C-alpha cells in the first residue's frame, strides 16, 4: 500500500467519526459506561481485597512467656518462633515496657497504689504477625508446644470471619465483574453492529468498485480505535475523580474508618499506571476489533 493510500485511509477513519456523529456518539457513550462499570467494579474489588488483607496483616498472635525464663531461654524461644514458616514478624514486648505502658494509663491514685508493689506482675510477651491467616490456628497450636510458653492469645474466631468474608467477596466480585464484562461486550457489539449496519450501503458500494476487505476495514478499525481511546480517556478521568472523592472521605475521618482498615486503600496515584493501561488497551481493542468484526458481515458481497 502506498503512503498516500495509508494517509487517505487514516484520514477516512477520522472523517468517519465526524460524518457519523450520532452513531459515533452512541458508541462512545456505551463504551464509556461499559468501561466505567467494569473499571469501577475491578477497583472496588481490588480496594476491598486490600482492606481485608490489611486487617489480616494486623491480626497478631500474642505469646506469653513463662515467668522465670532466662535471657538464653528467651533467645532460644525467639529463634524457634522465627523458624515457623507462617510467622512473618516477631517482636518482643518486655514486661518492663508493658509495666510502663500500664502505668501511663493509670490515674494518680492507681499509680500510688501500685508503687508499693514488690515486683512487676506482668509477663514478657512476643507479638507475632502471620503470613497466612488461614493457618493461624495451626500456628498457635504449634507455638503452645514450645518450652517456656505459658499461653497464647490469637483472634482465631475473627480470622475465620475474615477468611469467610474474603472468600465470599472474591466469588461475588468475580461474578459481578464477569457479568459486567459479558453485558458490556453484548451492548458494545450491538452498538457497533448498529453503527456499521447504518453504513452497510457504503460498504456495499465499496465492494462493487473493487475495494479489498482490508481497504474497507481499515477506516472502520481506526474509527473504532479512536472512539475506544476517547472513551477510555474519559473513563479514566471520571474514575480518578470518583476514586479520589471516596479516598478523601476515608482519609478525612481517618479515625473512624481506620477501625475497618480503610487506611490501607491504595491512592489513585498508585493505581494510575495499571488503570490507564487497562482502560486504553480495553477501549482501543473493543472499539477497533468490535467495529471491524461487525464490518465483516457486510463484506460478503
Amino acid at each position, binding site marked *: *500500500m*502506498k503512503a*498516500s*493510500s495509508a494517509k*487517505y485511509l487514516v484520514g477516512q477513519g477520522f*472523517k468517519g467519526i465526524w*460524518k*457519523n456523529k450520532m452513531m459515533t456518539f452512541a458508541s462512545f457513550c456505551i463504551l464509556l459506561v461499559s468501561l466505567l462499570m467494569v473499571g469501577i467494579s475491578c477497583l472496588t474489588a481490588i480496594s476491598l481485597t486490600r482492606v481485608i488483607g490489611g486487617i489480616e496483616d494486623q491480626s497478631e498472635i500474642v505469646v506469653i512467656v513463662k515467668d522465670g525464663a532466662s535471657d538464653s531461654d528467651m533467645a532460644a524461644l525467639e529463634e524457634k518462633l522465627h523458624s515457623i514458616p507462617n510467622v512473618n514478624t516477631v517482636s518482643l514486648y518486655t514486661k518492663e515496657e508493658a509495666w510502663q505502658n500500664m502505668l501511663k494509663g493509670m490515674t494518680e491514685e492507681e499509680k500510688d497504689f501500685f508503687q508499693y508493689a514488690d515486683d512487676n506482675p506482668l509477663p514478657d510477651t512476643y507479638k507475632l504477625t502471620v503470613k497466612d491467616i488461614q493457618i493461624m490456628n495451626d500456628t498457635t497450636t504449634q507455638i503452645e508446644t514450645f518450652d517456656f510458653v505459658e499461653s497464647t492469645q490469637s483472634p482465631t474466631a475473627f480470622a475465620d470471619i475474615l477468611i469467610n468474608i474474603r472468600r465470599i467477596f472474591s466469588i461475588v466480585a468475580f461474578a459481578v465483574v464477569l457479568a459486567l464484562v459479558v453485558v458490556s461486550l453484548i451492548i458494545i457489539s450491538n452498538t457497533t453492529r448498529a453503527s456499521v449496519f447504518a453504513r452497510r*450501503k*457504503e460498504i*456495499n*458500494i*465499496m*465492494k*462493487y*468498485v*473493487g*475495494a*479489498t476487505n482490508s*481497504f474497507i476495514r481499515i477506516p472502520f478499525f481506526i474509527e473504532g480505535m479512536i472512539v475506544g481511546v476517547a472513551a477510555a480517556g474519559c473513563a479514566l478521568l471520571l474514575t480518578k475523580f470518583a476514586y479520589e472523592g471516596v479516598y478523601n472521605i476515608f482519609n478525612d475521618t481517618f479515625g473512624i474508618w481506620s477501625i475497618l482498615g480503610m487506611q490501607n486503600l491504595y491512592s489513585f496515584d498508585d493505581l494510575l499506571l495499571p488503570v490507564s493501561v487497562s482502560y486504553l488497551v480495553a477501549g482501543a481493542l473493543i472499539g477497533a476489533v468490535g467495529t471491524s468484526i461487525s464490518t465483516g458481515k457486510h463484506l460478503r*458481497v
Partner: protein
Amino acid sequence: MVEFKDVSVTYSSSGVDALNNVNLKINDGDFAFVVGPSGAGKSTLIKLVLKEIDATSGTVLVNGFNLKKLRRGKIPALRRTIGVVFQDFRLIPTMTVYENVAFVLRVIDAPAKYIRSRVPYVISLVGLSKKAKCYPTELSGGEQQRVALARALVNDPKLIIADEPTGNIDPELSYEIVELLKGINECGTTILMVTHEHDLVRYFGGRIININKGSIAFDEVIGGSNESK
C-alpha cells in the same frame, strides 16, 4: 469480453431456477441491451458477471477471468475491470461528487497526481464540473446518475454494466444517459445495459438480448428508430 457457457443458476434457498443452460457471448466493444420481464433472470445474469453469486453449473468468463476458478480474494481484481451503474445510483452520501468518483481510483491505489487530473476530466465528460463539490443529496436524479456513470468510467474499465440506469430518472433524461453510454462505447468500452424501457431500446436499437424464464428468448441486432431520423 463476457461469455456464458451452458450456465444454469438454481437458488438453493428457494429452489427457483433463475437461469437455464444459458449460452451468451458479448465481445469487447459491444453494446448490448438486456431486456425481459421481472423475474426473467436479468439480475441473476448481472450478479454472475460481478461474481456476487456462483453459477450452479456451466462456465462464466469475464474480462479474462474464469469465475468458476476465481478465488474470493481475487474478486476485487475482477471488479476493477468492470464499472457498474445502478438504478438507485448508490453514491456514498457522505462524499462529494469529486470524492465519490475519486474513491474508485483510491481503491486501486492510483497515484495522487493521477487522481487529481483524471477525476476532474471524467466529471467534465458527464457535464458536472460545476457540481464537483456538491453532495449527492444536492443533485437531481439525472445528475446523480451521471455521477454514477463518471464513477463507473473513471478507472477506464473494459466493461460497464448498467442495471436499469434510467429507472429512477425522468424519461427525457433517460435518453441523455443512454447517449452518454453510447459515447463511452464508441471509445471501446463494452456496455451491458439492463432495462425495462422498450421505448429506449426501440429508439437506440443495437444488440438486444431478451431473457425470459431463465433462458435467452431472443438475441438479435435491430436497427434503432433514431437511425431513420
